[in-house]
């Protein structure tokens, strides 16, 4: 449920770090808790975000969840497929349902990220 090669936040995002690019999505646990996702709001490419900033929203039939940047930097890409098919976040949260890529300028926040095991523990406590 939580791939070992990813890092996780306590706010239920996953991060795949490749060189200085962080691809960000929400976890299988998060999409399951939200239910059918019907709208994803993401920042424009080029937007500067600081670690911990709210940078978007994932909305289901019943509720809204804010997205928090796990690292500071500029938005390098966003998953345009989600405009027409937000359900990809439910169907494939670690693959086709990714949200944004950030070119990391400030890596300090990355040290506090959780491993898959740590995140699984974190989820269990809730």
């Amino acid at each position, binding site marked *: 449920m939580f791939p070992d090669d990813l890092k996780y936040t306590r706010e239920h995002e996953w991060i795949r770090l490749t060189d200085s690019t962080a691809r960000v999505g929400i976890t299988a646990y998060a999409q399951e808790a939200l*239910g*059918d996702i*019907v*709208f994803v*709001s993401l920042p424009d490419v080029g937007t500067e975000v600081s670690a911990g900033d709210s940078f978007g*929203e994932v*909305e*289901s*039939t*019943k509720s*809204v969840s804010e997205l928090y940047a796990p690292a500071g930097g500029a938005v390098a890409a966003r998953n345009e497929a989600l405009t027409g098919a937000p*359900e990809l976040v*439910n169907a494939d949260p670690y693959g086709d349902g990714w949200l944004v890529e950030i070119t990391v300028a400030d890596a300090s926040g990355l040290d506090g990220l959780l491993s898959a095991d740590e995140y699984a523990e974190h989820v269990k406590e809730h």
Partner: protein
Amino acid sequence: MADLRRSPLYDRHVDLGAKLAGFGGWEMPIEYAGRGVLAEHQAVRGAVGVFDVSHLGKAEVAGPGAADFVNACLTNDLGRIAPGQAQYTLCCDDNGGVVDDLIVYLFSADRVLLVPNAANNAEVVARLAAAAPPEITVTDRHTAYGVLAVQGPAAPELVAALGLPTDGAYMSYAEADWKGHPVIVCRSGYTGERGYELLPAWDDSPALWDALLAAGEPLGVSPAGLGARDTLRTEMGYPLHGQDLSPSISPVQARSGWAVGWAKERFWGRDALLAEREAGAARLLWGLRSTSRAIPRPHMAVTSAAGEPLGEVTSGTFSPTLREGIGLALLARGVAEGDTVNVDVRGRPSPMTVVRPPFVPSSPR
């Protein structure tokens, strides 16, 4: 917090992997594993869905003149229906606020069954009991019956497959027999589709639920949770008590005046409601249709294009049928159909069109 009460189908919901949540003091299914709100909603619009709404209240009023007594308390006019029919009505307070909206089953002049909302059952029972003359008894029968709602174009076929009667008129009911067990079968619902609400004895509910899901398999049946129930009723513009109707929202404001017997000499809240109707409501319930991707949610503020406050959203969701945000909002007098208003969606003014529900065609009859 008090423990949540459980429906007779609780184990069934757990077995189906339902996401459970507290609703009106009851632990009820919101959606089912492998399905979800959108799939359950589409099953009801396109085939048939079965809802467990056993959390709904039940109360019996019995004794000589029981129907006349209820008619002198609740808003709608029981004189409009005959035994064998049910009626949507309101329990108001003296100020015209809505304590609850409920269904009355008229068994006879001396006996009626009430189906209030789960959270309001005790309050409705208490108000009626306090007003009842000694020869009339008001009894809380919350766990006497389960309630299964069978809703969708294939609902008649599914209910008929169980040997239950399906040919009654809208809002009529039959006291039927299913394998030697009594079941009340009412042509009613809260989805805008053709459908039935079945009231078996509480303990008979699991067997009836199993039979409906088994017989419905070739029809594309889906169990449906309270999440889909909310998107379905919002598409119809049906008010939900606690959001679109409440002690601070009168039936005149909520456009529920059709459920008030205005010509009756007595019902709770009569003077206040007549006065409000005469003066014209200061605010009215409208539909909102989002013209962007924004989804209205309860309590969001609504302003005019010029920025004046108009009111607030009372219900809002994503319409699975229209694939856009829809809602209900109480808006100041002067707002008109077709107006564009702004809803404050977490700080973003989001344009929405004022419309008259239903949002999608309704075919409950």
